């Protein structure tokens, strides 16, 4: 096991944490943060695995950069939506995750 693999393993853990957070955290801001953690995990895996032979690889680094930009864009949109939701319903949560009862009508 070398350092690169440690990055990758950490990335895996972050990804899993992020996924669990995205799924379980009721507050949208936390969800968005969890998504970013998840993203970081992915980027770590990407870079870490690629350089497990020891040499740095610029290709995944560039891809991670692209990924980061995309993640920023998505985060921005998500935040905007969350804000909108907050403005409209007073809570930054999905309806089914509100503290009260299930208010979603099918």
């Amino acid at each position, binding site marked *: 096991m070398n350092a690169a693999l440690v990055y990758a393993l950490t990335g895996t853990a972050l990804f899993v944490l992020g996924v669990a957070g*995205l*799924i*379980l955290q009721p507050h949208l801001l936390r969800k968005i943060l969890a998504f970013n953690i998840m993203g970081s995990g992915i980027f770590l895996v990407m870079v870490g695995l690629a350089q497990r032979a020891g040499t740095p690889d610029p290709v995944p680094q560039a891809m991670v950069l692209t990924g980061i930009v995309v993640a920023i864009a998505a985060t921005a949109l998500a935040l905007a939506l969350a804000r909108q939701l907050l403005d409209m319903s007073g809570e930054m949560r999905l309806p*089914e*995750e509100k503290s009260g009862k*299930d208010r979603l009508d*099918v």
Partner: protein
Amino acid sequence: MNLSIVLILPLLLAGLVLLPATRRMGMLLAPWAALPGLAFSLVAPDAYTLDIPWLLLGSRFGLDETGRLFLFFTALLWLTAGLYAHSYLAKDPRRHIFIAFFLATLSGNLGVCLAMDAASFYLTFAVMTFAAYGLVVHEGDAEARRAGRVYLIMAVLGEALLIAGLLLLAGAAQTHFLPEMARAAAMEMPNLAYALLFLGFGVKAGVPLLHMWLPLAHPVAPTPASAVLSGAMIKAGLLGWLRFLPLGEATVPALGAVILGLGLFAAFFGVVAGLVQRQPKTLLAYSSISQMGLMTLAVGAGLLLPKAWSLLLPAIGLYSLHHGLAKGALFLGVGVAQRFGRNGWVMAGLLLPALALAGAPFTSGALAKTQLKAALAGLPTPWPELLAWTLPLAAVGTGMLMVRFLLLTPSGGKQDDGIGLLPPWLVVLTAVAALAWMQADDSTVVAVLSGSGLVSAAWPMLVVALLAYAAWWRGWRGPAIPPGDVLVWLERAAATLRRVSLPYSFRSKRVFPAALVYISRICHLEKILCNWPLVGGLWLFVLVALACALLLVAHSPTV
């Protein structure tokens, strides 16, 4: 060519009568509609046949000896009845309807005599049957409607039995052309077919238990219609038997015995039931049942004794001629009596066919019965012994019936517009008096005119006279049997049944049963499902499952 005129002319006339524009002309010509038929029966060449391959299943019409005789007296009766009707219904506002049905029935009845294949026979028979319904219900009162209903039910039943029988017969014979059909079928002995045919035609011929419509329908119809119903159409059933049963071809012992027995029973049953009737026309109808019983008996004999058929057939023919004319004359006479009262000459006119029916000496009845008896001579025991005393007894019964008829003859008020009724009646009377003599075998004529013949014809008459006197003296009246006898019980039973049976209607069931409503509750699942953490969990689950599915297979040695 000739033939088509015989059958189509009446139908054309019916059309003319129905259309208001041509009604006058049609009514004028209608009475003569049977004339071509009559003429044809006289002038047609021997063994005339006409094949019309494009008609129905491929049709054949023709005229053999039996057919010629039947056509002759049928046409004669229809002709006279037509002329009679012209006058009889002169004041009826709906007479054109009657005439139209009359003409259609006529066409069917003549067609039955001419048809020489199963399909056209069935066709003409059906035309006759169903058109006659119009005649039966013409009066339109409750009685007529009831009679019509019964008539129709029985007719339909008969038609159904017939088509089944004909089909079976044709299936066995592989052809539907007469007479090959009957002959070929006789090799196969399709007993079921014979039974069906016997019953099917038996409806028309008034075989006991199938006769119920007859005492209702014959009397309620206007008199000219009653005449043809009882005189001619009833014989169409007989002709059906003659055409399709294996008479003279094969022995059908069981069926023959049954038919013979039924015929004999009918001969007496008709008398007994007729004697207690109040209506002269009803009485005549029962008399027809009784007389048809004798002819049925002869048919049964033919099935028992094929080799006697050469004798039986002319005897049956003669008897048909005799009965048809005599019964026609009686019915027509009833109408005459209604118009002219019980005049001496009217009663004299009625007496002639009455005596003839009873078989009095020198009448056509004596001829017919004598020839029939002679033909029945060869039957196996016990039939000769049985018939030896039953036939005279039947003659006595018929005589009694006739006496009763004459007593019942209505005495209508004198009307002057009935003069047109007389010529046709007279024609029939003449025919009753004369025609049988021309048709009967020489030996029969000799036998009838011999001493013993005269005696055997006369003694039943004497008995009749004595009995009649006794009955009159005792003031005896029989129990009343309602017209239609068995039918009345049947109707009562049916009414009871109807009351008992629950009202039941065929309603279609609800398409979506209530159970589905409960199923629809599972919609709530979607609400539960619509939950981000749950879906996320499911997603993870499927992810793991899919990963397992991919991993396990990808890394197992056998792929």
